[in-house]
Every structure is written in C-alpha cells, then in structure tokens.
C-alpha cells in the first residue's frame, strides 16, 4: 500500500466553543490515527492540543472519539477506513473539554478516591502474602486496565445524564470494587466494610443496565460487564435482596468461602 492523502475533520476549540476543522493530510502504510494527528501538528496545526504518551496502547492517554466511537488514537489503524471517507476526530464527549482533543478527566480521579483501598489482612506483613494463582486470576484480569477512561466516556449513565455523576462511579471503578471484593486477601469484611452493599448504595451499581458499551470499547479486551459488573450485581443481591442468603447467614455464621 502506498501513501495517500486522507480527509480529516478534527475538533478545535475550548470551553468557550469550537468546531470541526477540515484537513487534508498525507498517510503512509501502517500508520495509526495518532501518527496522522502528529503529522497535522508538524505540518498544518502546530498548536493542536493532544494528549499522548506511549503510542503502544498501554498508557491510556490518547483517548478520543474517532468517527463517533470512543477509541485510542494510537490503536486505530488508518487501514480500517476507506480512503475516500472523512475521518472525524473529537475529544471525549463525556468530559469537560480543555482544548482541542484534550479533556478534563478529573471526574475519574475523584471517583477513584471514593473507593476504599485494599484492606491488608491481620497478622501478615507486606511480603508475606501468599495466594494461589486461581484465586487471583479474576482480579488480575481487571488489573490490565490502563485507565484510558473510554468505558467511563461511553457509559450512557453519565455521558447522557450529568445529574448522575454524583451517584454513579462508572464501570472502571465498579470494576475496581469487584476486583477488591474478589481479592483473596482483602480483609474489608473483617473491618466492617461490606463492599457489595456499598457498591449498590454508594457507588451506584444499580444505575448500570448492563448494556455492555464499556466492554465494547475496552482496548484491553477486559470483559468488564460479564466478569466484573454482573458478578458484582449478583454479589449485591446476596447482600441486599436474596432472603435465602440472608437467612443462611443468620443461621450459620461462617468465614468467607
């Protein structure tokens, strides 16, 4: 494949307003959208603001919406587009815009702080933790998260409803709750913290209607809905809604299975 001239429409502006600006830009074989954005910076728009870092799909910095779909610019090959089509690149539309393709993702850091951290088990010092691989497999899938916040961006609960931002943590942080609740050594229960109940009551798990957009956009291929959100919903049912489980816990007090 030889080089060609692609049509790009890139959103330029800031919180006061802005719009899509058209460009024609050279594209070479094997390039990704981020390469083309860098060429735009180098040749036509030196003040174009864009956040990026690793160019390898591991830092989660270059999140944007390409033809309306939340994606990493560095992981979107130009070969997936027709040469004649206009490739539209906009900032994430769920977060406040700072400038051009850069948004303020501070909402996510605030939500991260609201999730209680791992509670170390009593009687074990760091370095003495021992776990079976099969016990940590589930949590390790969630640790692949690169915090690109594409799942947070696409989730309609906050994308379409600003008023839900206080009550809803978003898929990335509900996944964090699931990760900790499935962690074999987390001692939250022993310290009086019921992560399942707080997932529902404090982090808005009930707002999730499991429509799987978070899973669809995850560049790490984490099965967020099936492996984190639905299991967490089932665990919340154990804690809050299932009378048989409640009765069982009253009759027989057992250590965590």
């Amino acid at each position, binding site marked *: 494949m030889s080089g060609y001239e692609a049509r790009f429409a890139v*959103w*330029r*502006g*800031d*919180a*006061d*307003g*802005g*719009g*899509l*600006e058209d460009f024609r830009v050279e594209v070479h074989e094997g390039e990704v959208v981020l390469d083309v954005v860098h060429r735009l910076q180098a040749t036509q728009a030196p003040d174009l603001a864009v956040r990026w870092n690793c160019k390898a799909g591991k830092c989660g910095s270059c999140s944007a919406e390409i*033809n*309306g*779909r939340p994606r990493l610019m560095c992981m979107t090959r130009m070969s997936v587009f027709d040469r004649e089509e206009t490739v*539209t690149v*906009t*900032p994430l*539309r*769920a*977060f*406040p*815009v700072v*400038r051009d393709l850069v*948004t303020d993702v501070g909402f996510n850091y605030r939500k991260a702080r609201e999730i209680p951290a791992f509670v170390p088990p009593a009687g074990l010092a760091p370095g003495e933790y021992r776990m*079976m691989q*099969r*016990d940590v497999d589930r949590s390790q899938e969630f640790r692949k998260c690169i915090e690109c916040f594409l799942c947070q961006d696409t989730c*309609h*609960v906050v*994308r*379409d*409803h*600003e*008023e839900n931002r206080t009550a809803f943590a978003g898929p990335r942080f509900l996944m964090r709750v699931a990760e900790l609740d499935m*962690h*074999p050594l987390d001692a939250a229960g022993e310290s009086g913290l019921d992560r399942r109940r707080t997932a529902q009551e404090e982090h*808005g798990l*009930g*707002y*999730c*209607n*499991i*429509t799987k*957009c978070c899973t*669809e*956009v995850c560049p790490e291929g984490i*099965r967020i809905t*099936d492996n984190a959100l*639905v*299991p967490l*919903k*089932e*665990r*919340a*049912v*154990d804690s*809050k*809604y299932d009378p048989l489980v409640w009765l069982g816990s009253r009759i027989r007090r057992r250590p*965590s*299975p």
Partner: protein
Amino acid sequence: MATGTEPHPQRGGVHNPTRAAITARHLRTDRWWLAPAATAAGLLAFVVYSTWRAFADTDYYAAPYVSPFYSPCLAENCRSMPHGPNADLFGSWWGISPAVIVLIFPLGFRLTCYYYRKAYYRGFWASPPACAVPEPHRRYTGETRFPLILQNIHRYFFYAALPVAGVLTYDTVLAFRDEDHAFGHMGLGSLVFLVNIVLIWAYTLSCHSCRHIVGGKLRHFSRHPVRYRMWRVVGRLNARHMLLAWASLLSVALADFYVYLVASGVFDDPRFF
C-alpha cells in the same frame, strides 16, 4: 480559542456546556442502528408468535410430541396426553389456556436475563440505542427503582427454570416413542426436540446467576476445586450466552411450530424407525 459553534448553555448530556461544542448528537458513521433494530424485530416476532400460540389452546399435542409451550400441562382443561407431562394441579376452575400457568416462569427467566436486559434496553427502550449514541430520555435511574429493581430476582427465575427444563427433558425422552406410545422409535420431531432441549439446557446453565451460584460467589477457588471446575465450565458457556439465548429462543419456537404443523394435519411426522 473559539471557532464556529458556541456551547449549548441549557442542554444536558453531550450538549452540556462544559463539553466540546458539537451540534450533532453523535458522529458515528457505521450502521449502528442495525443491531438494535434487528434485536427488536426478532424479539417482537417471538412475542407475537408465542402470545398467539400460548393463548390458542389448540394443536399442542400430536402423539408422541407435546409443545414446549404447554409442558407441563397443569390444568383440567389440558388435552389427554398418555404418559405425558400432565398433572391436574389447578383443577377445573382454570378457564384459559393452560400454557399460561407455566410460561410465566421461562418468560420471567428470560425477561430478567442479563443478556435479554441488554437486548431490550437497547432495542426497545433506546437506553442507549448503541454505544456513544445518546438516549432520548431526560432522566435515567437504571435499575435502582421499582419496577426495574425487580431484575435482582433473576436467580429465583433461574431456580424455577430448572424444573421446567427437566420436564422438557422428559418430553424429549417421550418423543422417542411412536404414535402408540411404544419406545425405541424416532422421527424428525424427535430430532427437533433433542436439539431444542440441548439448547435450552445450554442457555439455562450459561446464565450469569448460575455462574455465580456454582462458584462465582466464592473468594477462594483453591478451597473448592469441584465448584471451581463447575464455574469454569459454566464460564465457557456464559461467554456464548447471547448466542445460546437466541438459538434456544428460535429452537423452542420451532419445536412448538413443528408440533402445531403435525397436530393441525399440515403434514405427517416423517419417521426414521
């Protein structure tokens, strides 16, 4: 810097004034509407067909086959089905189609199923219609309030679906009889029933609640090796839950339609032996 469109001061969602000022509600260029439209059409077709058949109260038994919509048949007004899934538990006061008594359980199971929830939230309620396509509703409370908070009883419908699947398994065994109820025979209908019951069980066992109950609720798999294995098997099925949901929906409708065609005399069941 300000060029072109100014922010929308009074609007919510993607038109919130703090976000990038873009007039279009979404910029997707692919056929994002196809999946929700096809899902809605498929579910609607099944709802229309199953409602007609459930209330028809006729042509649901053609020895040795009984329609899965009418099994088990628990009222006095059921047709006589020798050695079949009859049990007159409801007596003579039940006046409408006996299918309604049992269908409520598989219906509830599918209605609260995590896959079908996604399907009808997207297909019928457009919440959202597709990823990064705004939903049309002004408010959204998800599954935090009545009635959608009742989706949390899915596991109870799962428990109820198990005996129903058990009865359909019994029906499949009975389908290996001839018209005189002698075992050791097989017809095209037996094959239809066999495929149907395999898909019904695969769908039922691939359920997210089943996955949780058999092992997902555990924190230490290493202490429960048998349940861990069961969880892994169910997990593999669960990865195909959507496929199994559609396949079993289609197969149960086809099994019923097959019985309808044979019972109404449209054609005779081809017998293999």
